[in-house]
């Protein structure tokens, strides 16, 4: 779905560029007709973009400058909500928790997804069965996974601590100890790695086999082939994964909502949960909108920096 959106966005951008080009040159009736036809074809997306994305974003910034409970008329208060949140220690705690999660969960997610993709790409007869088995955990909704993990992570009777017991690691109170609670949430996220692993699998299969053949002739081992061929050619997919992962990671909500309610001691109070509580428990929709707006700007900034940095590490040259 993300990729579909990406294609549509590029179509939209192309349409605008085309319009600009037409301004510079003599408009040809045929081109105009093509442009209109193109716009017509992507009109459902344009309509959806303005109605469900652009309008809510601008509306959110407006609400962020009001005192609003969700009912009645919003009262304009300017930047007061932003002033308040800059002095709100719980907001900073939530932002710290969110970045802690993103910094840990996203790179780990990339590694897990690549490992899964490599496993799915093995030339064995039962590969389709393995692929299905590795993909199955991603089908489970985060809600159901979280409910299940409460039991798996039980400090005394949980399966996870039982396995760690074989390694002589003492029992850990995953959800009740501030040192481990965020790690537990990071762990939940890895169950969804199968989705992105499929994209990595497609990228892996797009790598021409002659590159590996040439490397073999030069005497390269499996590790060198992975490091000098596979990994560089997976970087466009890694970039995609990071962009999507950071975007979703900054909005992490469900596992904390289900498993910890932000505790212990606010160690899993992520910004999205903080927004939710303010909007729907405390009736402070205006304040919650201000926090959402800030989170949106942070997300956009991180995405821009990631895109900018990609010129230094993403390899688009397959040949």
């Amino acid at each position: 779905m993300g990729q579909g959106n990406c294609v549509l966005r590029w179509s939209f951008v192309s349409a605008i560029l085309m319009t600009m080009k037409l301004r510079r040159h003599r408009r040809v009736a045929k081109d105009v007709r093509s442009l209109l036809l193109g716009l017509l074809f992507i009109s459902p997306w344009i309509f959806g973009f303005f109605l469900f994305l652009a309008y809510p974003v601008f509306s959110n910034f407006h609400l962020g400058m009001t005192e609003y409970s969700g009912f009645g008329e919003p009262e304009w208060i300017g930047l007061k909500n932003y002033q308040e949140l800059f002095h709100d220690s719980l907001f900073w705690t939530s932002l710290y928790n969110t970045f802690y999660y993103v910094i840990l969960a996203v790179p780990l997610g990339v590694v897990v997804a690549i490992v899964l993709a490599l496993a799915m790409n093995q030339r064995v007869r039962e590969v389709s069965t393995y692929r299905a088995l590795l993909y199955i955990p991603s089908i489970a909704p985060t809600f159901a996974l979280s409910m299940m993990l409460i039991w798996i992570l039980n400090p005394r009777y949980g399966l996870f601590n039982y396995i760690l017991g074989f390694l002589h690691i003492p029992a850990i109170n995953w959800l009740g100890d501030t040192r481990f609670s965020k790690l537990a949430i990071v762990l939940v996220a890895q169950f969804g790695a199968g989705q992105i692993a499929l994209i990595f699998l497609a990228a892996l299969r797009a790598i021409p086999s002659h590159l590996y053949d040439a490397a073999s002739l030069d005497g390269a081992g499996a590790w060198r082939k992975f490091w000098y061929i596979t990994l560089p050619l997976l970087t466009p997919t890694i970039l995609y994964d990071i962009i999507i992962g950071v975007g979703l990671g900054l909005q992490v909500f469900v596992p904390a909502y289900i498993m910890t309610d932000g505790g212990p001691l606010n160690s899993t109070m992520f910004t999205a949960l903080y927004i939710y509580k303010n909007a729907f428990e405390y009736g402070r929709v205006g304040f919650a909108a201000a926090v959402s707006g800030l989170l949106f700007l942070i997300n956009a900034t991180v995405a821009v920096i990631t895109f900018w940095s990609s010129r230094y590490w993403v390899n688009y040259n397959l040949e």
Partner: protein
Amino acid sequence: MKSQLKTLFAIGSFLWFTGGAYGQTEIKFWLNSSLAATEKNAYQKAAEEFGQKNPKLKVNVEVVPGSETDVAKLMTAVRSGAGPDVAVVDRFTIAQRAATGLLVDLTSLMKKEGKDLSQEYSEGPWREVLYQNKAYALPTNTDARVLFYNKQLLKEAGIDSSEFDPAKGPMDPKRFQEIAFKLNQTDSSGAYTRIGFVPWLEQGWGYTWGYAFGGSFFDFANCKVTATDPGVVKGYQFLYDWAKALNPQKARTFVDTYWQWPAVGTLPDAQMPFFTGRVAFVITGNWIFATMKEVAPHLDYGVTYIPAPNGLKSTWSGGWSVAILQGAKNVEAAYQFLRFVAGEEGQSLLVKNAASLPTIKALMQNKDLFAPEYSFFLSLLPVSKSRPPLPVGALYWDRSKEAEEAVITNSKTPEEALKAVVDAVQPQMDRFCK
């Protein structure tokens, strides 16, 4: 063409006959998912009985996600015009929901009915449904928190349970600690397998201990959050000291193992630590009778006052209420249903099916309604307190829970933790102070 017209006529007649059947008015009634199963059943029965007595009205009961403080689904549904006519709302949040504009002011409806309902209901529950002296809901039930003890476990440990006879009044906290710690058990690794009493388990909230030590949580005269009131601080100090004596980390692991707090909703009733003998004492309320009947019918238990210094008899009451939501399609019919479900018939169903206590004064006098075990709880209602009904009630509750967590993990002193509560809640409260 003729046959098409006939078909249209047939469909139209069918729709008229079934959809607008007998001119029935539909009332959409929402229950939140955090209600106990017994409570949901009782409300369902009330809706059915109401329908039988009022054939022109039909109540459609729907269970939707939500909890005492989480009304996301309700808020968004009402905002979008798809909300219910009537919903069950936790009473201590009524002031807050009324302040946000979610609820319909019942004043004109009550005036039209010509009854002074404030005289029918007990003072505490009635005060909770008011915001700026106007009623926004009707209270359906109430409760009281007491100390339950497992007689069998006490007997096995050689403790004379007669010391807990309510006739002797509330036990002093120090004496209680001596007794409770005798019941602690650990395994070879030193982890607790039984703790006599975990003061913060189940209903042992900060409010419980703040009130037990004579504290007050709000000064209505001056519109001040008084979480740092000396009595409240003493209550939190009691929690701090108890946790320290148990070892905070070990106690936390015990609670997370056997109670899975705060994801407590995932634990089956039969696994509750008091029923499984993992704790010998627990603070909980009368609603437990309905569950106990199902999952622990042979448990040998007793009830007594919450331990408190100087013999102070303390408890606090909560409970639910029914309110009409903004945008309700048929306010008159909704009010009629409200009066039924929060009236004598509806409340009697809640008492019988969900082990509730009534909020209607007249019902409390009806001895036939209550099993003998209710008498102790009913006797406590005159001294019972409630959470302050404030337009920032949910925030105050959440921040008090955070303070409690900081105290039981010994990561903050009670003074520090409670000052943080005042610092967070008072500025929000100031918006409503005049």
